[in-house]
């Protein structure tokens, strides 16, 4: 009896000893992402991307010999929850670095928490220009393409493909949807497109057919939209139902058609084109290996969210190895101007506003798959640095 207890005790002790030794050795990355709520589908891609990269890095000896440990918290796509969870990750889990925020409101609010905790945050999803623009923070980085980069690429393609195109705009009626539309409108008009009119539907509209009369009357060649998620499913399939897709080119924001909703949209998505930072088609060995590994692990294609999240781990690895430390100030310095390799090709973080520069692609849905139809270099797409805080 006594021996059993001693053995148990010894086992317990050694287990604790092991786990503390293990914990001291790992580099902890907090993932504050929506696993439930409206953006759970995006959170899933973020998780898959991060996990795949982490597995690869850890298998090759980690970062400076230290394994990466991902610690998840569910932000429920609600900034108030995201902030609370960010504080938990910083103060209780003692993470070295934070990522995973999806909606722009959450990224901005969590950025403040990071500033107060003197830690760094990198978003791989949020695309509001303000995050690396007027509301930039020395503690916030963005490794994905912002809205401006996307619309520049798409407008350049439109000018070449359909010069002087007549465009109609349909956006979801909230700030982000409106600013995405106005950014593209400006970019398109600059290269010669003609705007026929615009309409904004409430977010989460059931039925878009009530706007079809206006669209039909305007007789556009091109329809640009910035709706996303379930709204896109409804908009496109209802347009198909009403026979509006004939002789009409559909353009949209990068979040309009994604791997979350493309299956549900089905044939109505054919021909849709958008400016993005990623496509599974990108022809380089890193991407080929990435797509194969991602599919094997998750039984699904990576989308831009999964890929940008995957790339982030390698950016962090490169920065920590350059800084030879996980210290916030040193990693920040190392991230500024960092160039690293990702499935999307080389990316560089602009030091002035912490925005990643990358080649932008215009992709079009062909037989249910995104095909690359045009490219714009990173320098041409990124636009001026408007961050004045640092």
């Amino acid at each position: 009896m006594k021996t059993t207890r001693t053995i148990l005790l010894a086992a317990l002790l050694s287990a604790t000893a092991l786990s503390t030794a293990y914990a001291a050795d790992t580099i902890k990355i907090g993932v504050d992402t929506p696993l439930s709520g409206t953006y759970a589908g995006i959170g899933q891609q973020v998780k898959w991307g991060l996990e795949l990269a982490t597995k690869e890095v850890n298998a090759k000896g980690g970062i400076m010999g230290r394994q990466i440990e991902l610690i998840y918290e569910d932000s429920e796509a609600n900034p108030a929850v995201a902030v609370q969870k960010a504080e938990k990750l910083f103060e209780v889990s003692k993470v070295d670095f934070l990522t995973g925020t999806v909606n722009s409101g959450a990224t901005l609010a969590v950025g403040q928490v990071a500033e107060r905790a003197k830690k760094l945050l990198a978003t791989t999803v949020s695309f509001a220009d303000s995050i690396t623009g007027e509301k930039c923070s020395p503690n916030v980085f963005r490794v994905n393409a912002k809205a401006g980069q996307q619309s520049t690429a798409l407008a350049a393609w439109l000018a070449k493909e359909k010069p002087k195109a007549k465009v109609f705009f349909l956006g979801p009626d909230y700030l982000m949807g409106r600013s995405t539309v106005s950014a593209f409108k400006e970019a398109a008009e600059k290269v010669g497109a003609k705007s026929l009119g615009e309409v904004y539907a409430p977010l989460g509209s059931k039925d878009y057919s009530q706007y079809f009369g206006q669209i039909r009357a305007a007789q556009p060649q091109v329809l640009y939209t910035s709706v996303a998620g379930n709204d896109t499913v409804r908009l496109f399939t209802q347009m198909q139902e009403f026979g509006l897709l004939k002789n009409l080119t559909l353009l949209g924001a990068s979040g309009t058609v994604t791997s979350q909703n493309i299956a549900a949209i089905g044939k109505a998505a054919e021909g849709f084109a958008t400016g993005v930072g990623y496509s599974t088609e990108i022809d380089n060995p890193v991407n080929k290996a990435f797509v194969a590994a991602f599919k094997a692990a998750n039984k699904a294609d990576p989308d831009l969210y999964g890929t940008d999240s995957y790339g982030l781990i390698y950016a962090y690895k490169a920065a920590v190895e350059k800084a030879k430390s996980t210290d916030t100030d040193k990693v920040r310095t190392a991230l500024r101007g960092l160039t690293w390799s990702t499935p999307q090709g080389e990316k560089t973080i602009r030091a002035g506003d912490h925005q990643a520069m990358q080649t932008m692609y215009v992709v079009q849905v062909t037989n249910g798959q995104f095909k690359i139809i045009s490219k714009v270099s990173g320098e041409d797409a990124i636009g001026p640095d408007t961050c004045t805080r640092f």
Partner: protein
Amino acid sequence: MVDALTRSMRASHLLLAILVAASLVVAAIGAALGDIFYLRLATEALIFGGLAISVDILLGYTGLLSLGQALYFGLGAYLSALVLMVVPSFWAAIAATTLASAVAGLIGGFIVNRVRGVYFALITFGMAQVAAKIVYNTRALGASDGLIGVPVIDINLGVTSISSGSPVGFFLFVLALIVVMYALAAYLLDTPFGRLLIALRANEARIPFLGYRTMTPRLAAYVVAAVIAGVSGALYPMLRGFVSPELMYFETSGNAVITVVTGGTGTLVGALYGSALLTLLKSVIGSFTPHHLIVIGILFMGAVIFLPKGIMGSIRPAIERMLARGEKP
């Protein structure tokens, strides 16, 4: 003479004293360990507890279920954030939110108090939805992104000052403020005004015959509830440094209702216990599964079916009996 209402209030006070004592212990342990997260989480629980108290004033004392109390909470939060970004003064923010939520409560009260029962629930629900939508679309309020950059402030208390960034200090301060609001509500409900409310709830048709109006006390209760929700909301940006439209969504109102019903309707103190429990529960379950709504929903349904008086409502009678024994000479 001590009647049943006064006695039950006293029982609530005792339960509150226990909660305050426990909070002080938590604060001491937190301070000793240098904790930041749990103290600030507890502060947040108190703030949402304040919102729940305002729901309880309506549900527990007038029998009217508000599904839109987040409207006043959000109003307080946004106004406080705006004031603090211009003048970093706690008292200015509190004064502004008290005034604004009283006015808003008066206007809202005129609309919603025309109806009763389920209609009241639906109309408060709809009103909050519309308000949230307007905020969500107003560029000056940051629209869907909300407002960030609310500064950490020093709360001037005359003899000393407390920083809203200090985990222990601000926790204790919020605790004190919530206790003050609780005391205010408890005092009001123990006066003839409170008895009138309870009488209204029991039999509205008879009240006019006793020479009272029915509209005025209901409206007054609604305004008091609005102010408590507004002031609680005002504390939120001080703690978290930002506000977002999600604070006004139905989720916030719904959570407050879940909190009150689980904690104990009509006990006031149950709102605070419920908030502590729900916050703890969410924090624990949230780390295990993204499907915390299933767990919370089932627990809530269980409370509605098996524990209609809530946790505190089930405990309180025992304390009342204890107090009654003590009253005998």
